[in-house]
């Protein structure tokens, strides 16, 4: 009896010591966080690893994922209602960043990241940290970055003896030469939907020396000769050599038609690369080339932006657990895997400097991206009412593609855009 009793006590003692140890290992045991993500390739790369994180920390992660616009709408309505159970969310600094920061929905991550030597915040490029910092608040840890580049069909260009376009005029000439609508083959494609097209129009406008507005004086510049020249080039390419359904095309439709071998040239974001160059997803992987965005009179002025960041909700009730998730997802080890294996373009310098980190990128793609690094940090107007501004700008381009008087439309749009800017001075 006595023996049995002591054996029992021993077992209890052992078990409890094991439990104490594991509790020290997993300080967050029993906590649950809600993570709201976007339907993005980054999410596809991270989601399968979440169980690992749960096993590692004891935090239970309830994650969900939405299309980018639905994500913004859902988060905004939940945040306004004030009872959001959100802890961590994906966010687009250039789209909703200024608005969400103004409404106080971002937790300043400097408080968590600045002193975390292992996390090494300084490892993120200065540009990407700048992009997610609004008036001193680090609103998000940078995730993916992107630049505008030119995708082209190597086989078609070779067959017709056309060199890869290095200027916008050459791009126009090449699109004209390759366009063969009678056989349902088109010279050029890019986004034609009113709002989505604005970001890809930007490099055209910049390369002609234009911009959306003067950031010193907040004066709208949609009607300047430079901006108009950019709009004219973009819309003429689509009007004259684009597929007939182009006005309803977002990047997914553009990629669709490019993958069906019906288009020769295509300008869009570098981050779409896995959709075109990955043989498991694309029919044209073998024959797709990548080049630097063609130069205008001002040279090749593309954008180099931080498209997505990972943020913490200011009123989160599990901030420490939320930070644990963010530092795990964007940490060095995971970043190396997500960029190296999953070909996502991240913002950590150490990953770019590691041969393992760049092994899935083709040489021409890497060269085009490298040439664009350090370009303009915005691909849409840097302001709070971005969505409305994009509609105003995109409307001009749609008018132009449909063959309307886009100069008159640009004058009108400039007045509307100025009214919007005046509210933000």
């Amino acid at each position, binding site marked *: 009896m006595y023996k049995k009793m002591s054996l029992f006590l021993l077992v209890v003692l052992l078990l409890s010591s094991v439990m104490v140890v594991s509790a020290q290992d997993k300080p967050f045991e029993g906590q649950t966080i809600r993570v709201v993500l976007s339907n993005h390739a980054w999410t596809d790369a991270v989601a399968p690893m979440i169980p690992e994180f749960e096993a590692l920390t004891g935090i239970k992660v309830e994650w969900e994922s939405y299309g980018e616009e639905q994500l913004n709408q859902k988060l905004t309505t939940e945040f306004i209602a004030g009872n959001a159970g959100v802890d961590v969310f994906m966010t687009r600094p250039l789209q909703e960043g200024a608005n969400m920061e*103004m409404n106080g929905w971002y937790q300043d991550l400097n408080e968590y990241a600045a002193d975390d030597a292992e996390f090494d915040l300084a490892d993120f490029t200065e540009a990407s940290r700048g992009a997610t910092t609004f008036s001193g608040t680090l609103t998000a840890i940078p995730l993916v970055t992107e630049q505008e580049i030119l995708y082209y069909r190597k086989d078609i260009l070779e067959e017709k003896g056309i060199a890869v376009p290095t200027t916008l005029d050459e791009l126009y000439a090449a699109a004209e030469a390759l366009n063969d609508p009678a056989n349902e083959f088109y010279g050029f494609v890019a986004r034609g*939907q009113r709002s989505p097209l604005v970001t890809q129009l930007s490099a055209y406008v910049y390369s002609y020396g234009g911009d959306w507005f003067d950031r010193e004086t907040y004066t709208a510049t949609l009607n300047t000769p430079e901006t108009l020249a950019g709009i004219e080039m973009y819309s003429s390419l689509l009007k004259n050599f684009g*597929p007939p*359904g182009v006005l309803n095309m977002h990047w997914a439709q553009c990629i669709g038609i490019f993958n069906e071998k*019906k288009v020769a040239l295509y300008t869009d974001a570098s981050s779409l690369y896995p959709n075109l160059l990955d043989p498991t997803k694309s029919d044209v992987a073998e024959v797709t080339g990548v080049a630097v965005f063609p130069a205008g009179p001002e040279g090749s002025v593309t954008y180099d932006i931080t498209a997505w960041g990972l943020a913490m909700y200011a009123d989160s009730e599990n901030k420490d657990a939320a930070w644990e998730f963010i530092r795990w997802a964007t940490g060095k080890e995971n970043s190396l895997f997500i960029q190296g294996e999953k070909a996502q373009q991240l913002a950590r310098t150490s990953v770019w400097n590691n041969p393992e980190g760049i092994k899935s990128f083709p040489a021409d793609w890497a060269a085009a991206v490298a040439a664009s690094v350090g370009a303009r940090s915005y691909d849409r107007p840097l302001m709070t*009412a971005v969505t*409305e501004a994009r509609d105003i700008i995109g409307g001009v381009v*749609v008018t132009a593609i449909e063959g309307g008087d886009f100069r008159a439309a640009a004058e009108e749009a400039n007045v509307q855009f100025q009214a919007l800017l005046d509210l*933000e001075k």
Partner: protein
Amino acid sequence: MLSRWIDKHEKWIFPLPAVIFIIVLMVFPILYTVWNSLTNWTLTSRLPTMFVGFNNYIQLFTADPRFMASIGRTFVFTFGCLIVQMILGVGAGLLIDAKEYRGKRIVNSILLLPMMATPVAVAMVWLLMFEPTTGVLNYLLKQVGLPASKWLSSSSSVIPTLILLDSWEWTPLIILITLAGLATLPTDPFESARVDGANTFQIIWHITLPMLAPTISVGALLRFIDCFKTFDIIYATTGGGPGYASETLNIYTYQNAFYYFKFGYGSSLLVIFFSIVLGCVLFVTYTRKKLEV
């Protein structure tokens, strides 16, 4: 004591849950929307939210070309749908009813299928078929030697295409209503008409349609309200594009509220929207009463 009190006030107590339900879920949101429409509540603005009177309405009617255009478009779409669906629906109803044959019920069920499908799924399928380059519709048109259409991706063809899509889905409802109406008609007037030597067309025009009129007008009213409020198929196919060419009042309101986060302005659009639908319904019920008397 209590039970006697309940007995005494039965007429108040029993409807109470329904009344509370309606107040909380309908009256309050409408009043709250009206209140919001009188403020400048905008999420992207640094200005504090405050009462601005009828400023939103003044701006809508004097300085917002997108609003005026969207109202016009909404009416074009609504009446386009109504005309197509009423003619096709009543016509098909009469045809189906004209003769008895084997398998009639099966034909009826098949005709009703489009109505059962989820609008967004329907829209996605049609979106693929309408694709000018890879869609099946242009392929078929070319096979029979007709020129290809841009369908949803041109400003001039987008509204007719949406009318086609909406009619494909909702004409069966009118067929159903017509068949129900036909089933209730007495047979005597038809027999006496035949005896008097009326031909089929005369019977339809002078007897069937006038007798069906009350039923058809209910169907038309239902379709009117629904078409006017159409959101799903437009949002899922074009989102209001190309440009603004299919931006109806409903889509424009949604844009304002959930893309621009202008809740005050969006609310004033909703109030106008509500007033138009209410006005039209009152007008139709009023004229129906007049006609029947």
